């Protein structure tokens, strides 16, 4: 991955089914940047709004959640719930004058690495355009 695009920490929340390859392996293969912090959940339905906000407070420039396609979630509605929580987090960021595109929900194919890598690329593009998130 182009190191010029590494403009700050990105936190990714992925479920067991969307992230089947260990992040260390992807990092060693140069497919994800060193600034990506990977947090694995049993299901993205487990994600709560404070965890997304706390990631920003902890220094993230961008945060994303990668869950199964809505009709393919192992737990039926987990990724749909995650999508709603990401949407609510966007509203809170807007209230705080933080660009809501810094947080995103990606519905991806299960057990495929490429969509996760593409999500990282997309978030990297966004924060490159937006610049640093103030003093965070």
């Amino acid at each position: 991955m182009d190191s010029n695009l590494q403009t700050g920490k990105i936190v990714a929340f992925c479920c067991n089914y969307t992230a089947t390859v260990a992040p260390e392996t992807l990092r060693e293969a140069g497919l994800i940047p060193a600034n990506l912090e990977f947090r694995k959940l049993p299901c993205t339905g487990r994600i709560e709004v404070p965890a997304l906000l706390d990631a920003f407070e902890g220094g993230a420039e961008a945060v994303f959640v990668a869950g199964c396609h809505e009709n393919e979630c192992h737990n039926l509605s987990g990724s749909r719930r995650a999508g709603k929580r990401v949407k609510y987090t966007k509203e809170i960021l807007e209230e705080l004058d933080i660009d809501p595109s810094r947080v995103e929900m990606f519905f991806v194919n299960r057990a495929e690495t490429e969509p996760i890598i593409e999500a990282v690329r997309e978030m990297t593009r966004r924060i490159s355009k937006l610049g640093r998130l103030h003093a965070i």
Partner: protein
Amino acid sequence: MIIAERKPLKEILEMISGVEKLLILGCRGCVAVCSAGGDKEVAILASALRLGRKKAGKPIEIHEDTYIRQCDPEYLEPLKEEGKKYDAVLSMACGVGVNFIAECCPGVRVMPALNTSFYGANLSSGEWAEMCAGCGACILHLTGGLCPVARCAKHLSNGPCGGSVGGRCEVDPSVPCIWQKIYERLTSLKQDQLLRKIMPMRDWRPAGHGGPRHRIREDLLP
């Protein structure tokens, strides 16, 4: 139950400017049920305010707690001393809770995180509607159980204003004309004779127009 909603974050941030140590205090009563001020909402608000203050370069120490209710004195007892450890207490209860903290906890600075909205019912997950105005003089036995005081934009007591179109209120067409619904319901119950009963001019004193309301039951007093 009492329905409330969180104030805009900017209003809350303005309210707590200068506060360095804050307690956000939720309530597990009505506001928890309507997802405005329970444990989850306390956690979300705490995270949002921490982020907002950090972004402004003024980090804040926030503690989180939720009481069973903020409208009963026994639950507020710990706050009398605990509250003094903070620059302010941001209550996520309805206005009753905020008032009661102010009354019961001298020396504790309390502020509201919510706007208390109305008495409502939960129509579906995430949707609430006003059903009662707490007017203190219930007439639901005459109106098929549907309240024109709370649900008619003009609070009319003796039938519709005549402005409704297609059964929708002329003030807000997203709302049904409650008098139309009262008519339909009483007719279906074969109680439409109740519509002929003229209600006298309403005494608004029990609704609070005679000053703050207060109720005593001698048999329950300590």
